[in-house]
């Protein structure tokens, strides 16, 4: 292993050590280019002559951009492994990386075949609106699965902060984020202080339930195969709260204000939310969704400020920390400023 690059021989030596098979052949290793918080390696192997694909996940140099430990991410996958919510099955968490793969902790899960790309989703031609509508509906089905999961029996109350009741989900989320920020805050953030007044005064009290939330979701976060989501990935902003929050995190899979057309009808946000409600029983109002879009800005500030820590400590973090700590931070503050009236 040279610097942070994991070589074929590193994986080979590690798997021989860990699994103690007679033979290990590494056929291919690929480092996933997406995701700015953690790094993911796909390793195609033959163990005792049988093909087996693994996914290795660990923090990037500098640590985690999110104030969300890798172990917690593993615990989420582990709790969901035997549910109807599609996730990659966890295999093991490596707390003591051996001499074969020095560096931070990592965990290993089964690789799910598929791609984060939905073919033609990005093609702006109207004829592909059907593709977008179909992908949106599939995503609604999977969000409904998550939001109706029995998080208590799955053990999520043991690893997440639990709102006292459904009505206080929004306030609980804001105060939880503020509390997390205070844990590592290194400089005053007056825009956040000013905006907190707006967040506290406008926190909705009509969440119908407390649900497991995925956090970041949508295009780039899930694994697709034949227009179906076969694995929900990137749970590092997961929590318990109002399901409306997840819709504020959805990337590209909600219709734009102009809607998508399937030739005869135009499919709008309200249609997506109606479909979701019909299968989940959970109403999502645009008021709650808009509130959580502002909370999303607070979350951006939270993880962006966290990203500044290894830079300030003059460790050797990846340049992505610098980008997040500066430009993403500014975007988060702008979002808070727009909502709270600092910007006209």
């Amino acid at each position, binding site marked *: 292993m040279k610097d942070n690059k994991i070589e074929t021989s590193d994986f080979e030596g590690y798997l021989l050590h860990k699994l103690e098979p007679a033979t290990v052949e590494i056929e291919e290793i690929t*480092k996933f280019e997406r995701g700015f918080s953690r790094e993911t390696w796909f390793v195609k192997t033959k163990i005792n002559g049988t093909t087996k694909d693994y996914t290795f996940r660990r923090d990037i140099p500098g640590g985690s951009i999110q104030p969300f430990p890798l172990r917690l991410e593993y615990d989420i996958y582990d709790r969901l492994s035997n549910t109807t919510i599609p996730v990659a099955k966890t295999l093991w968490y490596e707390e003591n990386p051996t001499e074969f793969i020095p560096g931070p902790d990592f965990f290993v899960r089964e690789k799910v075949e598929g791609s984060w790309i939905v073919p033609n989703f990005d093609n702006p031609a109207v004829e592909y609106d059907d593709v977008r509508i179909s992908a949106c509906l599939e995503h609604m089905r999977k969000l409904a699965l998550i939001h109706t999961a029995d998080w208590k029996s799955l053990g999520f109350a043991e690893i997440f902060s639990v709102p006292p009741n459904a009505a206080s989900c929004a306030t609980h989320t804001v105060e939880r984020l503020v509390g997390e920020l205070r844990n590592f805050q290194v400089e*005053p*953030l*007056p825009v956040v202080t000013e905006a*907190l007044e707006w967040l506290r005064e406008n926190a909705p009290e009509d969440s119908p339930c407390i649900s497991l939330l995925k956090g970041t979701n949508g295009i780039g976060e899930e694994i697709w195969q034949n227009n179906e989501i076969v694995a929900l990935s990137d749970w590092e902003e997961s929590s318990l709260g109002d399901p409306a929050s997840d819709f504020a995190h959805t990337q590209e899979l909600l219709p734009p204000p102009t809607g998508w057309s399937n030739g005869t009808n135009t499919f709008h946000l309200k249609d997506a939310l109606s479909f979701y409600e019909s299968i989940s029983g959970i109403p999502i109002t645009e008021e709650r969704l808009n509130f959580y879009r502002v909370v999303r800005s607070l979350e951006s500030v939270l993880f962006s400020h966290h990203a500044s820590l290894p830079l300030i400590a003059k460790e050797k973090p990846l340049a992505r920390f610098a*980008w997040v700590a500066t*430009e993403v931070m500014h*975007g988060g503050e*702008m979002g808070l400023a727009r909502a709270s009236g*600092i910007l006209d």
Partner: protein
Amino acid sequence: MRPRADEVLNSVIWSFDTYITPELEEPFNHSLALTIGNMLRNVLERIESEGQALFDSNRELESILLAAKNYITKNTDASKNNELKILPARIEEAIEKQFWTEEEYPSLERVTEKATLLRASLVEVIEGLQNAKNDLGEDEEYKELRVQIRRYLKNQLAREAKWSTEALQGLRR
């Protein structure tokens, strides 16, 4: 003296973008190179703008903090919020604290330390005013002070926008 740091950095950015980034075929390395190029441009903008931005910010902040000190001193008894009582002295301390002498050229680090102290004082003022809203919220001077604070925050975001490209929009960086 010439080339200046900004002139050197400009050349480095052009060379990196033109000769290094396009040659990186491995997707992760290519993505990282785009981030590096973007951050070099961010640093270049900061070299050119940050000194003046901090100077302007500190001057504006001192003016607002003085206005806050005067208002709070006048209205301490009107609010049931006891934390207001300690603020005038703390504001004065933040404004008066010197981080460099008259003989020194103030380094960016020293000016940033001054800015941090003033911003910390502003946070205390905002929290104090928010907590006193029930008692003082209808007072015109209270409202005007809050407007001034928001105007400063808006101006500061505009100053910082000079070196920030809007994140997560446009081409991958």
